[in-house]
């Protein structure tokens, strides 16, 4: 049953079980880097290689994902669509989940890889967008909600560098 609150670890665990390759971006990645912000959804850039799309599709089925953008009809994930560069806004058993083909200046999984760090939590390995890249992407997008969070991200980056 779709959940209105977010259980991040359920998503990470199901994705690990199905060997889905992804990069954690957006607000949750900001929190992991120490930014005091709140977010309600989980933003992931997925690898769009054929094998990964198959794994991702299986994971989404296990999470009972459907597009939350249509309230009048339940639309489930489609492999061909997941292989494209678009954004897929799902509701799942583990809460809202956004799968993003590309972000910012047309950055896909491969393009973002160099700007990531691996976070190890127990047996889980989570690839996370680094803070510098997160700031650059938000500067590029430039929506009001991105501009609002930027001063906090920039200050967090400064403080982290001071602490080094």
């Amino acid at each position: 049953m779709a959940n209105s609150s977010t259980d991040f670890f359920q998503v990470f665990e199901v994705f690990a079980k199905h060997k889905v390759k992804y990069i954690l971006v957006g607000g949750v990645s900001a929190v992991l880097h120490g930014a005091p912000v709140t977010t309600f959804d989980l933003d992931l850039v997925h690898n769009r290689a054929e094998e990964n799309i198959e794994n991702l599709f299986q994971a989404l089925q296990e999470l009972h994902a459907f597009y939350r953008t249509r309230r009048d009809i339940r639309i489930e994930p489609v492999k061909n669509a997941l292989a494209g560069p678009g954004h897929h806004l799902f509701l799942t058993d583990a809460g809202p989940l956004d799968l993003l083909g590309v972000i910012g200046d047309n950055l896909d999984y491969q393009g973002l890889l160099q700007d990531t760090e691996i976070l190890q939590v127990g047996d889980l390995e989570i690839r996370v967008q680094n803070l510098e890249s997160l700031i650059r992407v938000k500067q590029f997008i430039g929506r009001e909600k991105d501009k609002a969070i930027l001063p906090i991200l920039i200050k967090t980056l400064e403080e982290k560098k001071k602490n080094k």
Partner: protein
Amino acid sequence: MEDLSQNHQNKKDNPVLQQDGQQSKAEEVDVTLIQWMLTLTPLERLQNLQRHLSMLERLKNGKFIH
């Protein structure tokens, strides 16, 4: 003074920190919250966010009675 100088050096070295408009707003951010977050591990930060969301979910079901 040492901190400011370090800060300046960071901005100079890092193009991400060089956008002045955003930089001045960054000076208005509550740095104590950031410093507290930086004392936590990434896992603790995520757990805090999770707890925060759970709390908001509970509060969402509340009602104002006055």
